[in-house]
């Protein structure tokens, strides 16, 4: 166990190091921000002064060491656009909004998928399965940003039930969360459905029926714990595309999360903010993978011992 933790931590640190380095190289690729930050009629002296202040006059390796030293000391660089404001602070300020939307959206998607699949299997209904999978596939053929717009069109513009932008109103989370949840729905429904059918053919399922368990106990009590394991694994693998989807949804609904911040930083060429965002996303990615591993171990005793 200790060995496992050590390798895992080392892996995590290596990943973060790679992201930090790539971010540095990309930042230098864009060249000095002087042209962006100063007015067109800035003097040579002004430009030089800015470059010296940002360290752009040093050779690349020196800049890199300085940059790493800064990060170790918790300095991720100031925003180009908001002078004196740490880019990391800007990102962390947006983190709760992203986390709450992502968590609620994902949870809702999983709840919907589990509910649909369990119902299908309890009822042993082919029609239900086809309906759920068909609806889910149709939803997947609609880009997230357009599905979000359709929701706005129906629930905000036409019905006037829900606010379409921001996160001031507690109800504002409904549509972005639904957009995320419905996008995830078919992925998990299909997986869980396959997985449940597979488990249902195994001997232990027959043992449970033979000892007199009812259908609900067999499906939910016996098959489901085993069937959720692959779903968890895939959830971890899909995390990347899930985070990508989050960026899009935040922008559709003007949800003030990290994705929206990073994108507006792209438009304003505020590289330090994008860089801090990437580092935070990488950290989140690693953390979520650890959580999934922990959850698998919790369900499956065989994983625990390994």
């Amino acid at each position: 166990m200790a060995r496992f933790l050590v390798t895992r931590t080392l892996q995590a640190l290596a990943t973060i190091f790679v992201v930090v380095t790539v971010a540095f190289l990309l930042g230098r690729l864009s060249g000095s921000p002087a042209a962006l930050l100063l007015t067109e009629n800035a003097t040579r002296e002004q430009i030089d002064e800015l470059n010296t202040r940002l360290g752009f006059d040093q050779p690349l390796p020196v800049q890199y060491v300085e940059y790493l030293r800064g990060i170790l000391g918790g300095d991720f660089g100031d925003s180009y656009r908001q002078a004196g404001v740490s880019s990391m602070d800007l990102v962390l300020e947006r983190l709760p909004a992203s986390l709450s939307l992502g968590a609620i959206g994902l949870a809702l998607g999983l709840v919907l998928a589990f509910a649909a699949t369990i119902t299908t299997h309890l009822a042993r209904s082919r029609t239900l399965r086809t309906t759920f999978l068909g609806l889910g596939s149709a939803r997947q053929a609609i880009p997230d940003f357009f599905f979000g717009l359709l929701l706005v069109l129906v629930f905000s513009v036409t019905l006037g039930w829900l606010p379409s932008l921001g996160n001031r109103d507690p109800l504002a989370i409904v549509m972005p969360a639904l957009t995320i949840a419905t996008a995830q729905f078919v992925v998990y429904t299909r997986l869980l459905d396959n997985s449940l059918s597979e488990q249902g053919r195994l001997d232990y399922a027959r043992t449970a029926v033979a000892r007199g368990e009812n259908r609900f106990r067999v499906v939910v009590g016996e098959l489901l714990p085993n069937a959720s394991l692959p779903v968890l694994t895939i959830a971890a693998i899909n995390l990347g595309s899930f985070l990508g989807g989050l960026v899009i949804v935040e922008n559709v609904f003007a949800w003030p999360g990290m994705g929206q911040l990073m994108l507006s930083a792209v438009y304003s060429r505020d590289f330090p903010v994008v860089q801090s965002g990437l580092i935070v996303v990488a950290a989140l990615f690693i953390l979520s993978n650890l959580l999934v591993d922990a959850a698998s171990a919790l369900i499956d005793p065989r994983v625990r011992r390994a």
Partner: protein
Amino acid sequence: MTTPVLLRVDDLSVGYRDADGAEVRLVDGVGFTVHEGRVLCLVGESGSGKSLTMAAVLGLLPEGLEVLSGTVRFRGQDLLTLPERELRALRGNELAMVFQDPMTALNPVKRVGAQIARAVRAHHPRTPRAQVLARVEELLTEVGVPDPAERARSYPHQWSGGMRQRAVIAMAMANRPALLIADEPTTALDVTIQAQIMDVLADARATSGAAMVLITHDLGLVAQVADEICIMYAGRIVERGTVWTVFDEARHPYTAGLLGSLLSAERAGSRAYAIPGSPPAPTRRPPGCAFATRCELPARSELCGTTRPELRPAADVTHESACHHADRTLEFARAVTA
């Protein structure tokens, strides 16, 4: 025989309908009776329909297969027409089953004790926790699991195959069933463990007085435990009788062949008899006797290829055979077992 009838199966057919709606029968018109406290063995090669027959009795047919005809009376009640709820009340209670492969018969993510406890709880949901735990320990002790309190808290992957099969038997015996169905309970185990498991089954039956249907292809096992025996071939029963009449006077060439391959194999030096060929697929069974193409009975005739033999009394009413030439099999049987 004076012991009352516990289970009576009549004309049971199991199968599916193919794309054209035609019936494909994997089990075809099978019938037998099990008396209280007695042991019936269903014997046959894999694919002969013996496991499917008993799966149908318990309503455990795999998806896609259905009962096409017949009745299954347990204490006079037809299990095939029983509502699911009432059938469930019998399963694991009066009717219990032990499966072939103990490595897969237990849920890998649940503690063994908890799974046995479920067998108690499924039928006595309001039993206090302490009482269930005590019962689980008692059951594990009965099937010879050492240190039961401790082991009940571990997971299946921490148990050996033989121990897992004991746990499965403990689960089956949890509610003192009247009928235990054991589907090749020792096939997946090491030879050294097989005898132990048969002992455990015998002990469990001795304490509970349960009748047993043992599904097996191992005639050696049959000789040890069976009272009566049904030989199945290609979905049908081809010979039925008490174990010693069948063993001593095989009235079907298939039975004779099975005995031949067993007995001559045990005798060093002699050439083991082997039945030539393999059984026909359920979709292309011949119009006559399904065994005709493999039959080496000298007395076999044209009739075998054209008319299907029905099961009828051969020597006396308790010994039946589905062979047109049941009266001419003894010599053949003696020849192949010699």
